[in-house]
């Protein structure tokens, strides 16, 4: 059974009298353990796809089966529960809470798990997630005391903390320099390899998409191409020379 199964998904936005067809019938299966990169220029519909995959939005038509369950028509709160249990998000802008420790940031999804976990249990699980991304020794740092790469790894720990079957990463390296980008991509690759977590990555950069095991190109609300890919290893010595000023 695929983790994700999209069946003829369409999404129509109404902007005044204009009708925008963001997705025009997308069908797609993603199996457990895949690292899928979705690439496309802005306006291609990849963000809309990401919102629907992430249960942040509902399709206008079609069906979305997540772990076999149709989530296309669930209520707002039911979708919140699905997001909490099954999906981890990694955003371009990290979206960490300011003036809040790394540990407390990682704890956030656990606050909304039902039944409610005791505070000690929340703490222990957040700590374990932080250690998984190699930031156990930064637990009490605030985001402004961490580098960009560290912040994004805290965000990955937050995405991991509820043991989701799917991590959705929306331009996770968009705010990072090349070296840090590679660090983050390696972290994501390791999650797939060691824990079998399915990863869907949205990006407009071809060299970032190349870290995936499968690359799906999207244009004008339709899938343009869908190819298996030999993932590019995230090795530091492969870093292309970059100007000194850009090095973190």
């Amino acid at each position: 059974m695929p983790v994700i199964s999209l069946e003829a998904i369409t999404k129509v936005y109404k902007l005044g009298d204009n009708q925008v067809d963001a997705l025009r019938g997308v069908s797609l299966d993603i199996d457990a353990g895949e690292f899928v990169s979705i690439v496309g220029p802005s306006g291609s519909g990849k963000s809309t796809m990401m919102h629907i995959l992430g249960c942040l939005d509902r399709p206008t038509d079609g069906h979305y089966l997540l772990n076999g369950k149709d989530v296309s028509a669930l209520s707002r709160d039911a979708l919140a529960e699905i997001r909490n249990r099954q999906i981890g998000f990694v955003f371009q802008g990290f979206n960490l809470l300011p003036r809040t420790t790394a540990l407390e940031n990682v704890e956030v999804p656990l606050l909304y798990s039902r039944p409610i976990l005791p505070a000690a249990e929340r703490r222990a699980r957040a700590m374990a997630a932080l250690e998984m991304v190699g930031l156990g020794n930064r637990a009490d740092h605030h985001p402004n005391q961490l580098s960009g790469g560290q912040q994004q790894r805290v965000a990955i720990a937050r995405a991991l903390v509820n043991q989701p079957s799917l991590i959705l990463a929306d331009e996770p390296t968009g705010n990072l320099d090349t070296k840090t980008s590679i660090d983050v991509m390696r972290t994501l690759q390791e999650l797939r390899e060691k824990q079998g977590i399915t990863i869907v990555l949205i990006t407009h950069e071809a060299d970032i998409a190349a870290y995936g095991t499968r690359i799906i190109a999207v244009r004008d609300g339709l899938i343009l191409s869908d190819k298996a890919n030999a993932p590019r290893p995230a090795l530091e010595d492969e870093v292309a020379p970059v100007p000194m000023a850009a090095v973190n």
Partner: protein
Amino acid sequence: MFALMPVNIRLAVRSLNRNRMRSLLTMLGIIIGVAAVLTMVALGTGARGSVEGEVRSAGTNLIFVRAGNYTRGGESVGIAAGLGAAHTLTYADAQAIAAQVPGITAVSPGLSRRTSVVSGASRAFAPVDGIAAAYAKAYTWNIRPGHMLADGSSEAVIGRTLADNLFGKGFDPTGKPITVRDAAYTIVGVTDDTSDEHNEMLFVPWRKLQAGEGIDYLDYIVIAAEKAGEASRIADDVKTLLRQRHGLASAANGQGYISQQGGGAGRPDDFTVETQAAKALTQGLYTPAAAFALANLPKLDEVTLSEMADTLDRASDTMTALLASIAGVSLIVGGIGIMNIMLVSVTERTREIGLRVATGARSLDVALQFLIEAITLSVVGGVVGLMLGFVTARLIGWALDWPVTVSAQSMALAIGIAAAVGLVFGSYPARRASLLDPIDALRTE
């Protein structure tokens, strides 16, 4: 939903702490409002408490019958007799009152004198009253050391202050002889009454005082009502009874005199009935002024302590209304301030809300977070207001000489009102936050 309360409260405190100045300014309305509420309640209950205290300290509600009456000088057709100078009250009157007026617990005849009292080498000039044993019951006296004098005996009870003057401070004078106008008595007890008046007096059995002077009248009769609220009714009954007994009840004598007391036709009273309230009112007034007051305020003797309480209540009602409007206005303004700042906060933290919703927060979770933040803001304001109100109440109490009581209930009320303001004015921003679209919220910069 409540299991996250500690987390939410911690979040709220942190968020308010982050903008300390802003939080303080926002709380100002609540602070003033709560201070006004507390002051209002403190002054209101204080006034009520002091009246109740007076009623309680009076022990029983006493009624005084005095011989004679105030009259309006030349207009009076009856004999113009000054208070206490008439010889119209008798022991038979006291007995009749005790036998015929219901609701009475004690009746004591009384004679008032000021004279020298001598015990051994000590001598003093003091008020001496002839009374019955029931007097102690009427005034709920504490007699220590010793016991109350017995009717028809030669025993005397001495006031604490007078005893101190005669024998030295703290001396136990029981058993000491004391002479009043050549009559010998033995001190059997010391009254430790709360009133200074009694502490400076000597009390002897009324019969022996009467016998010593060869008279058969009384100066006054003290009556104690069983229930404080019945003093007026008893005063009326006593008046009717005494008018009958003194032959004043006839309405057919055609003199056209309108009694200033009771308003009925007939000859004027040759006695005066006062409740404790009327006595308190005229105390310290010069006789003509008291006469004027009593003559121009018909049925003044029916003024009871509860009516005095009503008067004080009316005064405190005025102050309550004033403070209530201050409280109302500042609580509304404070509430709007909280609503405003919470709306700002929701806008500022749109991304945070988006993140929380994306990671699984339900609408209620978000609403609750902001609602608790609003309530925390208003309750902290409430606590500050409580302290301010405490000081204000004391200051007003001190400046206006007004009794002030700050009770636990009034503090709870003030905090409750503050929390309610936070709840009411925080719910709109909380609802706004809970309805944010997570996609838009995450996109916000």
